[in-house]
């Protein structure tokens, strides 16, 4: 390791921040999973749909049936609870990561950046010694207790959060966000019924204020959290900012995930103070973990991936907000108000017969809405139709085209997909989708 990085990686620091993180993350994930089931979303999002959209490369992930779905959520909830308690920690983190990630992979329709963040945190926790204090594991096996850990175990979480905020901030640096206050100029006036604050949402300058404020916040908050002098003020901003988004938008647990996880920026003394008042200390002796070289490479690989993945859209022509190539896994949050319409046509080249598709016969309304704005979903849907018409109607080589128009950030709609292209003959890949028209 380079010496300049020594203090970020192998220096020994108190385990306390990691403990707070583990307990809060586990508790929040347990609640989140239970809330999801309680809202009836397992039925609506996984049992009602007849087909699912897939992430590229994960087409093999299947919906495991009703029992299977409830089992997956039960495993996720229990393992999250075990993470919170620090019980069979390694097993619990692996189970939580696998079950939660599997659920997310079943239907790409439900992709949310904060679910992705949960997957990443869960993955990291597998390798972090967050159960080495204040845990049932250390109660079972006191020799596991450890009061200090290498700095990388905490810094990797700080790094992850910094990437999230910074990329979200960079994504906001686009003309619509900065110079048109879009889409906040659409969304804020919908909330004029909120007491006091709502009055201001009718004014355009407030949308600009929120847009610029949001961009500056995202770009700088991690830095202000890193610094001792600004930390408390920055944390108040964190609470204010995410509290506001909670009030205005239907974004579920995300504000709480951020408010809780940014506590990791606070020094060990802060965390030991909290912990001392809640659970009796169990710091018996000091030991320390060293980084194995395999972990070393994994760590480097993980960090590189996190730094590069959000910028892969630069490899594709066109505006990512329009093409959505490289849109996911890049912390593009709340950037667009999009609605669209996609009407599929199928033609039998041998008989000349043709037909329009009623999307609702195959998709839930929510899936249809998501499909109408995402080209890769349209391609997947076209391939599903191809199979359907081959099997049910005996059309060997159906020609499938789409009239797809989308409206982006309050503009009138424009055609998104080349209407002459036969989607049945196209296969998805990482290559640029040339059948997406220029905006």
């Amino acid at each position, binding site marked *: 390791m380079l010496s300049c990085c020594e203090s970020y990686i192998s220096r020994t620091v108190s385990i306390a921040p990691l403990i707070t993180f583990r307990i809060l993350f586990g508790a929040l994930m347990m609640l989140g999973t239970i809330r999801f089931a309680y809202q009836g979303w397992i039925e609506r999002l996984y049992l009602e749909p007849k087909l699912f959209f897939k992430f590229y490369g994960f087409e093999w992930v299947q919906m495991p049936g009703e029992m299977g779905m409830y089992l997956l959520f039960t495993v996720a909830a229990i393992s999250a609870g075990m993470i919170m308690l620090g019980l069979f920690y390694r097993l619990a983190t692996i189970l939580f990561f696998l079950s939660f990630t599997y659920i997310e992979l079943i239907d790409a329709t439900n992709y949310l*950046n904060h679910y992705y963040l949960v997957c990443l945190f869960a993955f990291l926790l597998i390798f972090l010694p967050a159960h080495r204090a204040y845990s049932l594991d250390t109660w079972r096996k006191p020799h596991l207790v450890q009061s200090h850990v290498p700095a990388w175990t905490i810094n990797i979480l700080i790094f992850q959060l910094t990437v999230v905020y910074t990329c979200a901030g*960079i994504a906001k640096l686009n003309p619509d966000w900065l110079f048109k206050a879009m889409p906040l100029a659409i969304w804020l006036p919908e909330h004029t019924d909120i007491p006091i604050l709502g009055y201001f949402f009718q004014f355009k300058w407030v949308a600009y204020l929120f847009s610029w404020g949001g961009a500056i916040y995202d770009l700088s908050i991690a830095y202000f959290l890193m610094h001792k002098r600004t930390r408390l003020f920055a944390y108040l901003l964190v609470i204010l900012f995410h509290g506001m988004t909670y009030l205005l938008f239907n974004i579920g647990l995300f504000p709480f995930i951020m408010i809780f996880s940014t506590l990791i920026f606070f020094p060990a003394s802060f965390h030991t103070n909290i912990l001392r008042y809640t659970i009796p200390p169990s710091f018996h002796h000091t030991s320390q973990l060293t980084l194995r070289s395999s972990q070393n490479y994994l760590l480097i690989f993980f960090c590189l991936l996190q730094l590069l993945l959000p910028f892969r859209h630069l490899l594709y022509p066109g*505006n990512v907000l329009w093409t959505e190539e490289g849109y996911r896994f890049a912390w593009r949050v709340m950037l667009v108000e999009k609605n669209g319409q996609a009407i599929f046509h199928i033609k039998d080249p041998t008989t000349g017969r043709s037909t329009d598709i009623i999307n609702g016969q195959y998709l839930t309304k929510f899936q249809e809405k998501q499909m109408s704005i995402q080209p890769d979903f349209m391609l997947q849907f076209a391939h599903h139709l191809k199979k359907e018409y081959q099997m049910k109607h005996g059309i060997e080589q159906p020609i499938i085209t789409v009239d797809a128009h989308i409206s982006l950030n309050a503009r009138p709609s424009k055609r998104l997909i080349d209407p002459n292209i036969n989607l049945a003959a196209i296969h998805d890949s990482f290559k640029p989708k040339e059948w997406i028209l220029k905006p």
Partner: protein
Amino acid sequence: MKAFKWYLNILIPLILSGIFGACDPITNGGDQVDCNAAFDQQAMFQNIADHLIIPAYTDLQKKVTNLVEEADAFTAKPSVTQLEALRNAFETAYISWQVASPYEFGPAEEVFLRNSVNNFPLDITATQTLIDAEKYEFDQPDAFNKGFPALDYLLYGIAEDNEAIITKFADNGIGKRHRQFLLALVTDMQQRVAHTFNGWQNGYRETFINNTGKGAGTSLSLIINQLNQNYELIKREKIGVPSGAMTLGFTYPDRVEAPYSGLSKILAITALETSQKLYLGMDHNGKVNGLGLDDYLEAVEAQKEGEALNQLIQNQFETVLNTLNTLPNSLAETARNETEQLIEVYKETARQVLFLKTDMPAVLCVSITYIDNPSDSD
């Protein structure tokens, strides 16, 4: 300050790349309009309430009451004369319904008015099951065994000719069941219409007019959503399905609206004219042209590809109505014999959907809320 430098060294290149990455301009369709431009929403709602919605329910209430009276008279003494009178009442009430159909919110939504009076095509087996079981409950919004489509069947299609139809209502066995079913059916329709009409008389008008804003559940969002839902039903059920446009060209003439009475064409025309008038804020007789969605689009100066969106929508309504009016026969006949013509009507109807459902809500900054979001977002 070490951490600060480290942070800046990484941040600045990232920001630059972000800016360049997002620089490719989006000019689709036209520029953004100021969707928050000044417009008197309340005045528009008032016009729509007083000149469109309330008159539509007033008329429907009258026609449905007349329908109940004629059904009473017919069941008291079934005869050809009474059957003709009842059919007349049915026809005028069915046409009147088309004028009231787009307003499925507030009181109408409470009684599932649209589903209750006009789910078609009729499921004859399910209807017959109700009749045989002497069960006269119509509380299932998803069932296709009631409303005008059931009347269409009972009064025109249940037997070959008028004499045979009357026989179906005559005796004290099957005839009695049919009479009871008929009365229960029209009474149920009347009650739901009365509930809706009374709701608008007793406070909902004021609620509707004062419910300004753009969010889900505001009157603007209700009007636009329901205009679209109703329009999609016209496109798909009234025209698309019979034409075979969604079934590889295999036509379904018997799935038109009102297949037995042959009213499909006049019903479709009335429904489309109603959509047009709701858009324009024009009353049913064409006498008042008050504030409507057309004026709203003009107020925000919505342009699409160099043309005024309002003009595009108005032209398209004219085109759709013209192609529909020129059809020589009922929609069922057209589906059988001039399929291409009906498909042409379908295509013109579909063209309007993009303007009404995607463009209009976008430039007015109203979300299509009938796709309710069963999830969080981010």
